[in-house]
């Protein structure tokens, strides 16, 4: 699945936040927090990581 990403700065009830807007090939939109523990954010930072994750059994 190929994604396009867009960084968005939003106003919140308490201030502002940066959010990643991810759109897939089918137009489905996902909102990703800029949290290093979020695996989708990790993939945004390093798109090849998931593809190169070595299987346990090769």
């Amino acid at each position, binding site marked *: *699945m190929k994604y396009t990403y867009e960084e*968005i700065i*939003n*106003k*919140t*009830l*308490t201030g502002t*936040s940066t*959010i990643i*807007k*991810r759109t897939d090939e089918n137009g*489905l*939109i*996902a*909102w*990703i*927090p800029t*949290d*290093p*523990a*979020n*695996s*989708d*954010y*990790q993939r945004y930072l390093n798109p090849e990581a*998931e*593809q190169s*994750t*070595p*299987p*346990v*059994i090769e």
Partner: protein
Amino acid sequence: MATSPNYGWLEPDNTDLVKNGALAIRTLGNAIDTTMATMTPKSTVTTKGDLVAATAASTPARLAVGNNGETLVADSSTSTGLRYQANFAAGKNAIINGDCRVAQRGSSVINASTGYFYGAVDRFQGYSYANNTCTVSQQAFTAGAAPVAGYEAPFFVRISSTSTASFLSYRVEDARTFANTATTFSFWAKSASAQTIQIGASQNFGSGGSATVSILSATNVAITTSWARYSVTFTPASISGKTVGTSSYVVFEWVGAASNNLDIWGVQWEASNTATAFQTATGTIQGELAACKRYYQVKNTTASGAWAIGQANTTIGAIAPIQFEAQMRVAPTIVLGTAGKASGQSSFLTAAAAFPTTVGTHSVVGFSTYGFELDGGSYGASTFVAGNATLLYANDVQTVYTASAEL
């Protein structure tokens, strides 16, 4: 000659002559010696709490006392058939949803893009190799056909793929889990046609952590067309000296043949030298659902109705704080349902059951592990009175959001 009442040792009669006394005493002494040689000496036990256990028929041996709090369990692999085991009061099974009951994504997830994807059964992943189609689905047992009589599980997980390099996978949060401890990984399985699959496991130390360590190298398991339980005992590597990064995990994989359905149920990973009776991680249906929602949750409506309360922050928009049904592992990725007035869509209302003339767009503007803020913007001019409350209303059945904090 008389005999002793318990062991039958020969003794002189009361009327025997004194001249035979020495022989009688020696005969009695030898008999006692023979009997005593069959008994366990006191020196067998050396420490407070030691037990005497048999290593074979008529072969007693010392079983050293265990550590405080440990329990004694049967284990045929030890010399005495017994061993002490650390007592885990809760969470024996590190596999959440091991009985495959929770399936928040529906009954089937099909993927044809290279990479991992979460399947229909919560916590279980598929891996599609080279864009081959891989399906992970929840299947129902025929009543009475579940592999453990009395448990009568309702569902199992099935993987089918068009590539031998695609596989079923499961991630246990935290690479520290059971490190340097004897463990047993067990599961029931069957296959459309008999095949030898491979299972394996590794510690993944997460973002910023040490390199991945294999803890269970590829192990062949011959699967038949009937349900049977399989297990492998191994000790995950010590994590001493390792850097545990963000979102670390232990991953298991089942790799089977292409175009040959592989069915799995009753997955258990426990700190034990043997596979003990299967039990779910939490012990209850609701507990398993809540545990799954730490990683993924979906909110569906079952009919038209308000599903959140917001406040108009401008005349053309409103914000609604949405609370998750269970706290999530990390701030999750959110996918919202469609904004609109039509069936299967959601909108903020301008008054009781009154949709605005023009529905705007919905986005997410804040995250936490407890919830998120849904922002409705670009509604029609003068739709709202800023500061007023407004209901977020679902028109008919729909998924209003999904939240993913998966590993």
